[in-house]
């Protein structure tokens, strides 16, 4: 049994009296895609924020490739090889598409020329290489999401956290993203994906973790999760989207 690339042990996160995450534990093996699902407010993004260093967990430990992440700042977490995208996409609006991705690439090099090459490579992967000089703020939502993926991949991560990267996209755009995710997996990069699109999650995930009201409700293979009565009940309890 190899060391998991990401090991989440009894993580809790409190805000005042509210437990946004409560005793969550699971681990991820290198190269896999973990789906993280749960109704709105289940604590998924909070967990992402804890993992990537935006705030430390109130309790518990997070290990990434053997390093204890608690209390590390987001920039150090990125340098260690973990990158994340945002639920509400965050382009660097007044910078160009190419410059956006170069910012990511500059995490690994000090040379603008090298960064530019690395950035163009990522843009080719996500098929945005036809408009490198366009302003990021002017892109439609689908392209902004792809840009964000290209940008995080430019930081040469070993683990990528994707937060509802398909949110707000039409079916063909979602399909593009799904293919991207699978392509990223082929490149050997581990991924954790928060998503509400169940069909997509079923397709791409090797394993799924279900959160509900801050607690881990279930964990297992996709078909196990789908048949889990508690999971179904948790989703039915939430209003229809």
């Amino acid at each position, binding site marked *: 049994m190899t060391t998991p690339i990401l090991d989440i042990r009894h993580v809790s996160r409190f805000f005042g009296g509210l437990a946004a995450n409560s005793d969550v534990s699971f681990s991820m093996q290198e190269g896999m895609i973990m789906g993280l699902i749960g109704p709105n407010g289940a604590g998924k993004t909070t967990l992402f924020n804890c993992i990537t260093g935006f705030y430390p967990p109130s309790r518990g430990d997070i290990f990434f490739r053997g390093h204890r992440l608690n209390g590390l700042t987001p920039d150090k977490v990125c340098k260690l090889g973990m990158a994340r995208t945002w639920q509400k996409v965050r*382009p*660097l*609006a007044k910078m160009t598409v190419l410059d956006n991705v170069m910012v990511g690439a500059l995490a690994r090099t000090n040379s603008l020329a090298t960064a530019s090459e690395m950035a163009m490579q990522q843009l080719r992967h996500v098929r945005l290489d036809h408009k490198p000089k366009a302003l990021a703020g002017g892109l439609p939502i689908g392209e902004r999401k792809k840009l964000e993926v290209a940008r995080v991949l430019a930081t040469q991560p070993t683990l990528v956290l994707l937060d509802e990267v398909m949110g707000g996209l039409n079916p063909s755009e979602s399909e593009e993203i799904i293919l991207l995710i699978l392509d990223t997996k082929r490149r050997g990069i581990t991924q954790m994906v928060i998503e509400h699109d169940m069909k997509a999650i079923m397709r791409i995930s090797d394993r799924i973790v279900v959160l509900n009201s801050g607690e881990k409700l279930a964990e297992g293979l996709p078909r196990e999760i789908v048949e889990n009565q508690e999971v179904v009940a948790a989703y039915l309890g939430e209003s229809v989207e």
Partner: protein
Amino acid sequence: MRSLPVLLLAAVAIGLFAFPAFVESPYALHVMILLFLAVVQGEAWNVLGGYTGQYSVGHAAWFGVGAYTTMMLMQYEHVAPWWGVWPALALAVVAALVVGSITFRLRGPYFVLASIAVAEIFRLVALNWKDVTNGAEGILTSDLPPLVVGGHTITDFVSKVPFYYAGLVLAFITIAVNWGVQHSKLGYYFQAIREDQDAAHSLGIPLTFYKNVALAISAFFTAWSGAFYALYVGFIDPGTVLTTEVSVQFVLICIIGGIGTIGGPVVGALVLVPLSEALRANLLSDLVFKLRLVDESSRTGLFLKDNLAHAHALIYGILVVIVILFMPEGVLGWVRGGLARRRRGAAGGAAEGAAS
């Protein structure tokens, strides 16, 4: 004609260097010196405010440190200013880094407030530490020592010409540094911080470190302009170098021209300096009278004649309001927007032409 901008720049540079050979009027040299000073101040503020998005309205602090340290070293310790300016710059940078480490965890308007408070603290210290800074009386300089290199006296600083060249070189250096920053990893990181701090953080950018780098560069050149100002004008006191008005002036130079660009502060300086000089020299009121807008001997006329010269700060205030309301991207941004709109209009017309 991609080399056109470079050629233009070279022509301007040569013109500026040759200027004193053709123009002897001390007043013209004076205006140019003020222009260079404003360019340095604007470009310096731009590094922190324009690129990195941290709007400091307390940069008078660094201006003051540069001015006071250089002056005090010269007056009390008889250190020639071309030596004394270096410890002044070092002190300004160190002070800036200390302040930055404390205040950079604040965001947006809270950072602005903190920067104002810091500058006020510096001003109050200068005002009250009478033993060191002479308090409200300020420091008056005797003449600058002559600049002697290898036995030859290059200048004794009696005419304005040496200040002209010093100012010109300083302005060029500041612009060159801004250009260098913009085209380096620093520039990318600064702008990323401005656009979205949290995203930048998650992309491996240590925020406080890079903000401090931007501040250090910014404070360095602001302090240098302070030293230059002190030596050129010959008198400083807390009321002229450490007030919020001074800080606002730096910001104004940038936002009038266009924040976050290299040309912006230059344009801003070109607008502000002639404007304040025209006010001071009563040119504006003279113009109003010549245009018969107001009768010179009427009450309004007399009032204008007496007061327009002091209306500096009022004009600054009006300019700020106008720029923020109508041209938040500054003159350069406004021009760029106009060009883009015309291009789109032409493209649309061409497409229509092709379609029909």
